[in-house]
């Protein structure tokens, strides 16, 4: 049983090392530090919610490509100029379109995107409710048992 403990420890150590390396890599991509910690927090939030247009499933914060670095620089400069988060987003959208936002804004074009999950949930709940009610009616009527 000792060998099993050793294996377990090796797994834990390997996992820890992997996670540490991944974290280090994330820091290496973007070493930017803004003078004010509140500005830094907003910078991190913004770069995580803006898409890297070149490698489209990564955020600006995570992407190592040149264009992402350019856009991070713009985010930093805009924040240092005192622009609000909404102004930074608008600046990006004016150039790259809604697609750059990982969290699309609510507009007539994106209304379905936002409402569809809620509608689907309501529909599902209605279906569930009908089935459950139908079955409990069967039980109440004391007819043949419902198979599970």
């Amino acid at each position: 049983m000792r060998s099993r403990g050793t294996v377990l420890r090796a797994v834990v150590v390997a996992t820890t090392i992997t996670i540490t390396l991944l974290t280090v890599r994330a820091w290496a991509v973007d070493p930017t530090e803004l003078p004010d910690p509140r500005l830094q927090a907003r910078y991190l939030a913004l770069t995580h919610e803006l898409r890297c247009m070149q490698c489209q499933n990564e955020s600006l914060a995570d992407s190592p490509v040149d264009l992402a670095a350019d856009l991070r620089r713009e985010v930093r400069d805009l924040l240092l100029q005192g622009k609000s988060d909404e102004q930074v987003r608008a600046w990006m959208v004016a150039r790259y379109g809604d697609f750059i936002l990982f969290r699309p804004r609510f507009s007539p074009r994106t209304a379905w995107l936002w409402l569809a999950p809620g509608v689907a949930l309501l529909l599902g709940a209605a279906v569930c409710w009908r089935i459950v009610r139908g079955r409990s009616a069967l039980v109440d009527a004391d007819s043949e048992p419902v198979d599970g």
Partner: protein
Amino acid sequence: MNRFAVPMAVFAALVVVLALGIRHSPQKGIILSPLIGKPAPLFSLPSLNDPAHAVVSGDLKGRWYLLNVWGTWCVECRAEHQMLLEARDAHALPLIGLDWKDDDARARQWLTQFGNPYEAIALDHSGRTAVDFGVYGAPETFLINAQGIVVYKYVGPLTRDVWTQEILPRLPGHAGGSS
């Protein structure tokens, strides 16, 4: 069976909606530029061939031009180069190059080797102008009208089809009116 009728109908409706969505998506995989129909971003950048004069967007007003974003590091740009030379020789409108985050010496060598399709080449060392144009991958080509409005944008190597079907028909007096 009746109990399957409703789910099947819902499924069929979903298939139809998604199929229409795919069929009618304007350009598959291409992100529409928010700049179309809007004034092209202003720029004033050093010129590759004429150190004494900057390439200024304001100077280009009054005539239509193609702004072609390229770089010697861009493999696809090599693929469209022949088409750019043909476009130049068609004399339909001037081509302005935006050399994106490139090395000047290499850019000169590239143009000497493959031919220079551009009337002027603006050097965007910092990449700032490319960002203003919403460029996310070279080559990209913008058609800009005499009022300085972006009329059309194409992402990827320019092809003869794009040139004849998308760019030429949009020009005033279609089919080769020069300035």
